[in-house]
Every structure is written in structure tokens, then in C-alpha cells.
């Protein structure tokens, strides 16, 4: 029986090659997109899952009056471990805020992110060097680097460790032993590092009160985390008061400060941080699912449309003794075979498109490695799409009454008509949401790229530097750089406007406290970035006090305090008084998603070590850019005596442009989803209109014989589909509006929802429909009516 059913299925598919290709092709393309989405979502939602107890690990964070942070004091970890038995393990890590150069005679590598962790943390996160994790000496540390580092530093293979390397600028004369290689998939972990230092006590040489550690805890199974959070909060506040903080301090009073953020949440939606990753994963997941559902709808619709062709077969089989369940099973198996073929083609397409996908999302997804879950996911996908696309057609087909169908009465087609129409409307509604969505995303992106950011990064070059300057040696460097023809200004700062977060501290004005972003700068910072002054002046060498106690505020800071006529007034913070000498207009250093933070600019700030003012920026005439960069490269060794080993630079506009990356990804996702949806919908429409036109051949012939013109017939055949698209637009527009509004609400600086994308979606869908249907209808219109009647 199975063999015979298989033959019928294959011969049927072959006989209707066009429909088969459209059916399977559409599904294969959608499946390919969906498989990539499944892989991506799988990758993004399993960060750190290689750690056996990942679901019991939490990062300890703090709520500040003006936000949230993951930085905690080093002393918190041992206190927690001592006080709460439900904590199995505690670990701490500390990021290095500046780059380290590692060099040997053979080569030099810059470690942007050298992570120091204590031994407990290494155990908790399975940070195992290739030769095993060993406890460092009591007051010592062990330095490990990834293989890529070692390959540059020691080109010869099969080395034995430890090996000595220079650390920092060559002339600084510092060195350290590399203990070995550490292999760790940092691209799939919340721990990001270029090199790792493992110590016994990461806070041993640091001020225990300094709030600059990440503290992780691993709790015992069954721990009441909310209760533990509450207990840690109490402990933290007690410690802060013991360290000299007033119980009324707004940093700790009147609210719960400590929160425990599960490790499993840190990548996608950390409590202290943004959830853009989560939004991208969610958007991709929903879009991928929608594309697949559209393709399944297409499949169902086309299969139902073709049921009449199979009616006789069903009738005959029932007469000859087939049960309904036999037939349901037969049709499901047939659809399963088609879905399986679509899946195989889909996998081939995935292999083809995966490199582009990886390029777009900066991932390294592969069908062949690291995706064990695909082994069970693919069969599940296959069964689900078979059921979605197959159950209804199988029920319709198997439900034919033999007494009717063998006489040629196909009344059932009317029963399924409303469903086919509803599916068609759904398909087009989704396509319309995607078209409008894509246009709105693109409009917002265009706005972000063309809107005045308040500064001009185009002429600014950021020079990477690892040396620390004092007033004198910086002035020497500055004087030499300024001599280069084409250089307009040169400055140093603790933060460049590339979206990075600045340190925050409380400042007060006439008793009103406010957390301000603190940025330390040097003379010419504002001029280098082309910032605009609103009141007062920029820092100037003509005023000696500027290097002592002058501040420039931004507009947001002034309005946060509500200061009227701020110039000359005093604000207090970091245990000293400052005089406000200028107010600059707000500029979007953090991009468009967050509002401009109230910010204080100082040349000297006790809260920020002068060593942190090491980022260099130079403003260069556009037409002399190449010459200036060449001169700097050639002379950098002489110019920057402290760190002249390599001249490394980046263009500030490119760095700033990276802030748009996630939104550009979203745009690409929308673009892909829109093209796919339209393609699949049009494909379905093409086959569907071919079917309906074919079914109406007799009607068309009669109408033509009675005098209908070609145009009238074309209008007749189009009118139904135009209604379908009109209804789809009416459904799609409000959905697109709601989704677009919610998305735009995530931006501090955004466009109003424009009208044009909706109209455009309407016009595009209408034009595509009329074109597609008319191509089919034309054949029927041009045919000789006698043939159709004879055929009947």
C-alpha cells in the first residue's frame, strides 16, 4: 500500500511540477531563514551554558540613585561567603581600564581587555588553562594568554612555559611571565578578555572600599534567591556605614540597593545595561517564525487549492475500501515528504547563506560544529511544519464523499474558500507589516545618520595610547603634534564620544544632589570635537584656575539642577568646590538610544585618577589627513616618548558609527524578512491566481461569448485579489503602527511615525498583486472561448 501511495504522490508531484516547485521552493527558502534564526537564537540564549552550574551563578549589582551598576567593593565577597551558608562559592573579577602591550623580540600584541580574576572565580567559570588550573602562590599571580596571542609573541611552536614577556611600553622596562595558554570561547561567554591574570585575592593590593569589582556568587541548589538578595543588601549597607558612609546617604538609604542578576540573563537582558541584544533576538525569532508561518500558509493554501485534482482518487479509494484514517495518513506522509525535501534544500541554502549571516551578526555559526541541538531541532521543525501545513489539507481531502466526487460534484471547495481567503489575507498582512516596518526602520536610521549629533567626528582621529602623562610631558607632546601642518587641535581625555559609559559621581548645587557623568579633559577638548558653547567659555590656558577647580557643564546638567545664570556659580563634588565657567550645548556622545547624560567636564578631578586621561584626539584638516597621519606614524616614536612603539589610530566617525550597528543589523533583518515574505506571498499568489483563473475558464468563455471585453475580464479576475490586498492593508497598518511606535519608543531621539511607509506598503502590495494576477489572467483572456467550453 505504502509503495503504491508513494507512487501516486511522486507521480502527482511530477505531473504538477510548477506547483510542486513553488510549494517546496517557497518552504525551503523560509526554512533556511528559520534554521539560521534557530541557530542564532540558540547561540544567543546559551551564553556560559558550558559552565555546569550556570543557572546557579549570579552577578551582584547595585542600584544607584540614577541608574544601576555591576561594580561592587572587593570586601563584599569574603563577607558574603562568611555570612551566608547558602552561598557555595564567591568570585571576583576586575577589568583593566587600559590597554597592555605584551612584547617579545618577535612581536607585540595589545591586550585591550586584561581580566584579573581570583582563583575561586576561575573555578566557578571553568577558566582552565590548557595545563590545568593551579592555585597561584599566596601573593603572586599567574598570567595566561590565548593561543592567538602566543602565536604572535612566540612564532615557534611547542614551547614550554613559563616564558618572559615585556609588559607596557618597551622603555618602561616591565616584564612578566606567561604561565601558559588559556583556551576559552569568549565569543560565547559573558567574560570577555584578551589575557587573563589569576590571583589568590584579586582585591589584595586594592582599596577594599573601591567600588570597581565584579562579584559573582554560586548559590546552593534550592536557595531562595530573593531572600538572599535581601540579606546581602543588609550586609552591604552595614559595611558601607562601617566604612564611613552616612546611613542617610542617598547611595544606600531608603531603598534596596543590591540585586542579584542571573548569569543566564547577563548577555541578553542584564539588569545593569541595555537589552538591545534581547530585542534583536526577539525580533529575529518573531520574524523567522512569521516567515515560516507564511510559507506554511502558502503551502496549505496551494495544497487546498489543488484538492479537486485529488478528489477522484479519494473517491475511488474509498469505494475500494480505504478508511478515512488511511487517507489522512497517506496525505500527511505525502506532505511530510515534501517538507523533508524542502528541509534538505533549506539546509543547503543555509550552508550557502550562513557566511553572509555570520558577517552581519559577527557570529561564527556553523551547521557542522557546535550545534548539537540541531540534531533534535530539525526533526521537531519537520514534524511541526508538516502538521501546520498538512493537517487541514489532509482533513479536507480525506473528507470527500465518494458518491459526490465520483459524479464530479465538488461542493467541498466552497467550504474551504473562506479559509483560503483568510490565509491569503494573513499572508499579505504580514508582508505589509514587514514592508512598512522596513521603511520605518530605514527612516529612523537615516535620521540617526544625518541628524546633528552636536559634534563633528569626521575630522577627528583617536590615537590609541597606553602611556600616562603629567602636565609637563603632555604639553611637550602637544606642542610637537600641533606643529604638524594640518593639525588643528590636539587633546587628551578620559572618554571619547563613542558610546562608552563615563564614571558617575554625586555633585550638589545649593543642596540639590545629582549624579553627573564625569569626563576629565585637557585644553582644546571642546574645540577638537567642534562642540558649541551655550554660555560662558571653554577651558583656556589664560585662566590658571582652569587646571584647578573650573568646570564646564552640559545643558542637561544645568537643567537637572535648574540653575539660572550658571556662570560663576559653584557646584560641589568629589570633596571640593568647582566654579562653573561654561555651559556647552548637549551632544549625543552615547548615540540616539539614550538621552544625553548630565555631564561635568573638568581638567582636574580627584575622583578620576590623572592616569585615566590617556585617550588622545587630534583634529585634522580633511585635505591634509593622509599627510598628517603619515607624519605621525613616522615620528610617533620621537613624539610620544612614553608610548611610541606603535602608532595606532581609529577615525572617530567610524567608532561613533559602530553605535548604529545593532540598528543596521535590525534593518538588514527587516530587509531580508521583507524580501522573503513578499517573495513567498507573490509566489503563492501566482499559483493561487493560476488555479482560480483555470477554474473560471468556462465562466470567462461564457462572458466573452456574451460580449465582455478583455479589460472587463481582467478587472473581474483582479477584483477579488484587490479586495484581499485591501483588507490585508487594513489589518497590516495598525499592527505595523503599534510595532513601529513601540520600537521607536526605545530611542531617546527619534522620528515621529511617518505616514509614507504605510502608503508605500499599500501601493507596493497592490501593484505586485495586479501584476501577478494579470500575468495569469492574460492567458485566460487571450484564449479562444470555444476551447474552454469544448474542454468542459
Amino acid at each position, binding site marked *: 500500500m505504502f509503495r*503504491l501511495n508513494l507512487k501516486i504522490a511522486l507521480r502527482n508531484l511530477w505531473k504538477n511540477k510548477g506547483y510542486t516547485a513553488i510549494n517546496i521552493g517557497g518552504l525551503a527558502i523560509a526554512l533556511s531563514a528559520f534554521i539560521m534564526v534557530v541557530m542564532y537564537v540558540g547561540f544567543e540564549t546559551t551564553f556560559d551554558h558550558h559552565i555546569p552550574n550556570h543557572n546557579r551563578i549570579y552577578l551582584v549589582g547595585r542600584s544607584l540613585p540614577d541608574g544601576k551598576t555591576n561594580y561592587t567593593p572587593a570586601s563584599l565577597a569574603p563577607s558574603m561567603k562568611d555570612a551566608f551558608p547558602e552561598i557555595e562559592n564567591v568570585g571576583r573579577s576586575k577589568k583593566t581600564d587600559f590597554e597592555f602591550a605584551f612584547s617579545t623580540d618577535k612581536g607585540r600584541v595589545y591586550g585591550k581587555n586584561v581580566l584579573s580574576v581570583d582563583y575561586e572565580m576561575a573555578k566557578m567559570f571553568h577558566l582552565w588553562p590548557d595545563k590545568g588550573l593551579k592555585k597561584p602562590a599566596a601573593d603572586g599571580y599567574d598570567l595566561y594568554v590565548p593561543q592567538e596571542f602566543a602565536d604572535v609573541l612566540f612564532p615557534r611552536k611547542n614551547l614550554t612555559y613559563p616564558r618572559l614577556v615585556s609588559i607596557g611600553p618597551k622603555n618602561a622596562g616591565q616584564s612578566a611571565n606567561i604561565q601558559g595558554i588559556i583556551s576559552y570561547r569568549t565569543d560565547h561567554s559573558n567574560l570577555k578578555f584578551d589575557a587573563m591574570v589569576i590571583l589568590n585575592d584579586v582585591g589584595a593590593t586594592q582599596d577594599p572600599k573601591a567600588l570597581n569589582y565584579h562579584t559573582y556568587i554560586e548559590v546552593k541548589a534550592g536557595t531562595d534567591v530573593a531572600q538572599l538578595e535581601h540579606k546581602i543588601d543588609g550586609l552591604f549597607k552595614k559595611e558601607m556605614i562601617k566604612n564611613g558612609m552616612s546611613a542617610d546617604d542617598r547611595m544606600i538609604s531608603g531603598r534596596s540597593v543590591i540585586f542579584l542578576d542571573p548569569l543566564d540573563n547577563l548577555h541578553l537582558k542584564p539588569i545593569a545595561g541595555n537589552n538591545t541584544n534581547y530585542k534583536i533576538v526577539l525580533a529575529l525569532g518573531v520574524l523567522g517564525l512569521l516567515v515560516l508561518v507564511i510559507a506554511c500558509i502558502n503551502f496549505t493554501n496551494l495544497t487546498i487549492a489543488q484538492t479537486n485534482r485529488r478528489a477522484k482518487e479519494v473517491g475511488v479509494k474509498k*469505494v475500494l475500501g480505504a478508511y478515512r484514517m488511511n487517507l489522512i495518513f497517506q496525505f500527511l506522509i505525502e506532505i511530510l515528504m515534501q517538507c523533508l525535501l524542502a528541509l534538505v534544500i533549506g539546509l543547503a541554502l543555509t550552508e550557502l547563506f550562513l557566511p553572509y549571516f555570520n558577517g552581519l551578526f559577527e557570529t561564527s555559526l556553523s551547521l557542522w560544529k557546535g550545534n548539537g541541538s540541531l540534531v533534535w531541532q530539525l526533526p521537531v521543525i519537520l514534524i511541526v511544519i508538516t502538521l501546520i501545513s498538512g493537517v487541514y489539507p489532509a482533513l479536507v481531502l480525506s473528507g470527500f464523499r465518494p458518491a459526490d466526487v465520483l459524479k464530479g460534484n465538488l461542493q467541498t471547495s466552497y467550504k474551504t474558500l473562506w479559509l483560503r481567503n483568510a490565509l491569503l489575507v494573513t499572508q499579505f498582512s504580514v508582508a505589509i507589516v514587514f514592508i512598512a516596518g522596513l521603511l520605518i526602520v530605514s527612516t529612523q536610521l537615516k535620521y540617526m545618520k544625518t541628524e546633528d549629533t552636536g559634534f563633528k567626528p569626521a575630522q577627528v582621529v583617536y590615537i590609541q595610547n597606553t602611556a600616562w602623562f603629567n602636565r609637563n610631558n603632555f604639553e611637550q607632546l602637544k606642542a610637537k603634534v600641533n606643529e604638524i601642518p594640518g593639525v588643528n587641535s590636539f587633546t587628551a581625555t578620559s572618554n571619547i564620544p563613542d558610546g562608552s559609559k563615563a564614571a558617575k559621581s554625586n555633585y550638589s548645587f545649593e543642596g540639590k544632589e545629582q549624579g553627573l557623568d564625569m569626563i576629565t579633559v585637557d585644553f582644546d577638548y571642546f574645540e577638537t570635537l567642534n562642540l558649541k558653547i551655550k554660555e560662558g567659555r571653554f577651558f583656556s590656558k589664560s585662566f590658571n584656575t582652569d587646571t584647578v577647580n573650573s568646570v564646564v557643564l552640559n545643558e542637561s546638567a544645568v537643567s537637572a539642577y535648574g540653575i539660572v545664570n550658571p556662570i560663576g556659580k559653584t557646584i560641589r563634588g568629589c570633596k571640593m568646590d568647582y566654579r562653573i565657567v561654561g555651559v556647552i550645548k548637549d551632544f549625543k556622545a552615547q548615540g540616539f538610544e539614550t538621552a544625553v547624560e548630565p555631564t561635568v567636564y573638568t581638567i582636574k578631578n580627584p575622583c578620576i585618577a590623572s592616569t585615566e586621561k590617556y585617550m588622545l584626539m587630534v583634529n585634522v584638516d580633511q585635505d591634509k589627513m593622509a599627510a598628517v597621519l603619515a607624519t605621525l606614524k613616522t615620528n610617533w616614536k620621537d613624539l610620544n616618548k612614553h608610548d611610541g612603539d606603535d602608532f595606532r589610530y581609529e577615525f572617530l566617525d567610524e567608532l561613533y558609527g559602530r553605535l548604529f550597528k545593532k540598528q543596521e543589523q535590525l534593518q538588514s533583518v527587516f530587509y531580508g524578512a521583507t524580501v522573503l515574505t513578499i517573495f513567498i506571498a507573490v509566489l503563492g499568489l501566482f499559483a493561487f491566481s493560476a488555479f482560480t483563473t483555470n477554474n473560471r475558464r468556462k465562466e470567462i468563455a461564457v462572458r466573452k461569448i456574451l460580449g465582455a471585453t478583455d479589460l472587463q475580464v481582467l478587472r473581474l479576475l483582479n477584483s477579488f485579489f484587490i479586495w484581499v490586498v485591501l483588507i490585508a492593508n487594513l489589518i497590516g497598518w495598525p499592527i505595523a503602527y503599534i510595532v513601529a511606535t513601540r520600537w521607536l519608543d526605545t530611542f531617546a531621539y527619534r522620528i515621529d511615525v511617518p505616514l509614507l511607509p504605510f502608503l508605500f506598503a499599500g501601493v507596493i502590495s497592490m501593484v505586485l498583486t495586479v501584476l501577478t494576477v494579470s500575468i495569469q489572467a492574460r492567458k485566460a483572456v487571450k484564449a479562444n472561448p470555444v476551447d474552454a467550453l469544448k474542454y468542459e
Partner: protein
Amino acid sequence: MIKIENLEKVYKTEEIETTALNGINLHVKEGEFVSIMGPSGCGKSTLLNVMGLLDKPESGSYKFIDTELLKLNDKERSNFRKRNMGFVFQNFNLIDELTVFENIELPLIYNKVPATERKRLVNEIIERMNIVNRSGHFPQQLSGGQQQRVAVARALVTKPKLVLADEPTGNLDSSHGNEVMELLCELNETGTTIVMVTHSSHDASFSNRIINLKDGHVISEKINKNRTEELI
């Protein structure tokens, strides 16, 4: 063999009720060849569908060798049909995607006949129907007469007790039509009971008894003496 009593069948749409069978009483003996005639819409096809268990009447009784068939559920009807009945339709109703051999084999598969036995039975009937050289062809590659031969072969391959034929020559020219009627006669001579619906008095002349229907009633019955004598 068949005893039908007070059979009633009503078709209902939203607005109209049409009585297709109105208290039909009919007896068919084993080995008989009965023709049912009447104008379009008189209920002859409905009667055939009820006899073939393809349709359910509102009321009445239908006994097939002492088994009351109207009390059977769908599955039992299906089982009874495939074991005891064969069908021949006006428009042949062969499955276009299967070859002649496979079309004839289909009822044997539903009757769970083993593969080797199936092959033997199909070859036997193909030979009997004189379509050996067509066994690998698809229905569209055959003439109307040949297609109806295949349909008859399919109806006979399970050796049913009853063959129901619905205007078997309706789509054929006269020479092919006669061929099919002769085939049915031969079959009847070997003991198979046949009930045939037809518009053609010529075709009806091949049967033992002609029953005339009008508006769902049996209005007359005529014995075909020549054929009946043969039967006796």
C-alpha cells in the same frame, strides 16, 4: 440475495427538500442481472449509491444475504463493501497516476491479499479482459473502451458477489459500449449478481429484469424473457 424494503432518502439544502427515494421495495436474486431505468432525477443513481453503501438512507431496510447493512457503522460498511461489491462507473474513475496493473491491484491491496497472490489475480483478469499489452500504460494512454475494460477488471478482481454499474456505457461509442455489455453478460453467466443503472434500453436488454423508477418510486418491473430463460 438483496432485500430492500421501504427505503427512503431525502436530500436537504437550506431551502429545498428533495425526496430521491420514496418507499422503494426491491428484491434481487443471486445470479440475477437487474437494470434500473428512469428519467434523470428519478433516484436511480441514489438507489445504486445506497446499494453500494456509498450513501445512507433516512429509513428502510437493506438486507444482503440476511445481514442488515443499514445498521453498520462507517468502518463496517467499508469492510463489507470491499469484500462483497465491485463498482463500474460511467466515467471509469481510474486513478490517473497509477498504471492499468496498479489500478486493478488497488482493491486487492485494501483486501490485504498477499503480493504474489495479487500479481497472479491481476494477471489472470488482465488476460481475461484482453488488455495484457496495456498493463503498464496509464489511463490517459487508453481509449474509452479500454479504460472501461480496466474499470470492469478492477471491479471483478476481488471476485465480488455483487457488481454495481452506473451507466457503464454512457461515455462510450456503440461498438465499445456493446463490448462492455457483453463483458458484463459473460460475468453474469459465471454467477455474479449485477445491478446496473442505465438510460439505454439497448443496454437494459442484456439484463434479466428491468425496473423503472419515477420520482423515487418503482413504477414498473419487466422480466426480460430471453435472458431469464437463459438464467433458468
